[in-house]
């Protein structure tokens, strides 16, 4: 600690788990936006990632509330948010937005999209798996042409509703921070918008990397046209995200209000590595330059794929660093603007590093289960059964 902190500020109350929360919900929103490119905007080139994007969104969405639950002093009271929500609280919306997105958008869309395969698998598989698929049909076993046509139309409408819902899910997370007038690091109308665009970039990067990794593992050729298109969208959205973040930064520097001295000090000291080095240079400028090169220079296929993979990884690190700088950075300076504290991550505490690592790996396990149950690729058992 240096300078003067109010005595109750020395402890940080929001830990690395609260960093994970916007990061994970961002990946969900971004993955869904990628899926909607194919479904709503008819970008056929990204079709190989469509189902994978939906399943990725689902895997991360299932984990999204866990960092919050681990963080709560009394997680057993969390249901009060559903039954007695406080109407003026942004956070009180979480339960409803989450449930809406989980049940009305994502689960419904995946179910509609996979219904034919689920019905066929419930007939062809054996033992416990058969029971699982039977339950997943929800008793709807009509896979006639007309029924599938209705599925397609309803699925399109659900995706259409899903786009603003994805914005709502993550914009609301940004609003939780952006609406606090007590903290100038967070308080900005741009915060929710920056959160949404960084979420889109990170989600698209995650799905692209997962697609490339899984395709490699399955010893299948990566669809170059698909990753070219995904990377192009990622690049354009990243430019918007970068511009918004720069607008916020320039505005703060030029306005230089009473909090500026504190924030400037942090950017040059405590957050120098995570914000300037990791988030801005390595995580933003470097991938932007590389992705720009792929747009203007005729590079070989293998070079492009390597750039996409590298840029995707750097984007994921950059967006995580951005969440870290927002959540942790926002608590490192005193609201008196006269002092600074430090944050030490515990290793095995209930809000420590191991729990955080577990929570970031858990969605990958869920994704593995989902991929086994609902394979997104065409030569899957489902499709074989269908044929």
């Amino acid at each position, binding site marked *: 600690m240096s300078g003067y902190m*109010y005595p*109750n500020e020395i402890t940080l109350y929001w830990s690395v788990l609260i960093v994970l929360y916007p990061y994970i919900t961002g990946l969900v929103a971004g993955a869904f936006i990628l899926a909607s490119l194919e479904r709503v905007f008819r970008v056929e080139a990204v079709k190989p990632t469509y189902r994978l994007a939906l399943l990725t969104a689902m895997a991360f969405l299932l984990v999204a509330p866990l960092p919050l639950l681990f963080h709560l002093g009394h997680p057993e009271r969390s249901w*009060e948010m559903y039954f007695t929500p406080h109407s003026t609280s942004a956070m009180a919306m979480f339960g409803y937005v989450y449930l809406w997105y989980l049940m009305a958008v994502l689960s419904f869309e995946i179910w509609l999209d996979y219904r034919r395969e689920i019905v066929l698998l419930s007939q062809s598989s054996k033992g416990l798996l058969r029971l699982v698929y039977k339950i997943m049909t929800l008793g709807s076993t009509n896979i006639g042409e007309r029924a599938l046509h209705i599925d397609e139309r309803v699925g399109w409408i659900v995706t259409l509703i899903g786009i603003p819902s994805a914005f709502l899910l993550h914009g609301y997370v940004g609003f939780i921070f952006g609406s*606090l007038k007590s*903290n100038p690091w967070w308080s900005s109308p741009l915060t929710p918008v920056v959160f949404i665009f960084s979420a889109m970039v990170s989600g698209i990067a995650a799905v692209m990397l997962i697609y490339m990794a899984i395709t490699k593992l399955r010893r299948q050729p990566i669809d170059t046209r698909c990753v070219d298109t995904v990377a192009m969208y990622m690049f354009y959205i990243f430019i918007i995200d970068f511009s918004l973040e720069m607008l916020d930064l320039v505005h703060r520097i030029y306005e230089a209000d009473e909090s500026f*001295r504190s924030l400037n000090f942090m950017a040059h000291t405590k957050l120098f590595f995570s914000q300037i080095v990791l988030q801005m240079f390595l995580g933003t400028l470097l991938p932007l330059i590389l992705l720009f090169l792929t747009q203007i220079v005729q590079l070989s296929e293998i070079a492009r794929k390597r750039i996409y993979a590298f840029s995707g990884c750097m984007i994921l690190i950059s967006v995580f660093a951005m969440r870290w700088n927002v959540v942790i950075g926002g608590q490192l300076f*005193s*609201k008196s603007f006269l002092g600074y504290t430090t944050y030490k991550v515990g290793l095995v505490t209930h809000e420590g590093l191991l729990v955080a690592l577990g929570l970031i790996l858990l969605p990958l396990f869920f994704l593995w289960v989902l991929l086994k149950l609902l394979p997104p690729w065409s030569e899957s058992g489902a499709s074989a059964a269908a044929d």
Partner: protein
Amino acid sequence: MNITRRHILILLPAAAVAWKSVLAGTPEDSPNYNMSEHWWGMLIDISKCIGCGNCVRACQTENDLPDGFFRTWVERYHRSDWHLENPEVISPDGGKEGFPSVQDDPGGEYFFVPKMCNHCADSPCTQVCPVGATFISPDGVVLIDQTYCMGCAYCVQACPYGCRYIHPTKKVADKCTLCYHRITKGLTTACCEACPTGTRQLADLKNPKDPIHEFLKTHKVQVLKPQLATGAKAFYNDLDGSVR
């Protein structure tokens, strides 16, 4: 109206839920206390504070507070002529045991500023609580129902004055209650009672006979961080512009 078994089946659970709220909002054992007749605040006269820390100790004893966390604390400001916007501030252990003496006076002005929950009328902490565990009582005191709070710490982040913390053992938000258990029985707060110079004075803005009204008329009184428009009710007399 005929009460049928069906009515009872509906009414009993509803009554059970409602009873919890009734209990939460009831002033403790104060049958003659009428919440609607009061609107509490605090007057803090900086020119009188000597930084003895009596108020901090009294608060800690009265409310059985954990070490290292404070419902009230005292800061010592040193504002030099050249650094009006960046005063030197200290509050060792919340000022509980007083302050070290100044050895070589570098000039400028030294003064003490007692801090506590401002019991804001438009309190940001109350606004953000996702379950409504923190609330403004009808008599103007910001309170927390600790049997309801889930310990998310959103209110701690929302308080611009650093007055809230998460209780290390109860795992719920905690802050100054303006000694609600005392003031509803006609007593003053523990900090006011312990203050040897009368720096702190409990004020009832709805009571026309309360000396606060005369004081506010005759003194230049301010609140902390007025630009945040929180409706703070900790009124500071002789507040220096450098105080945060």
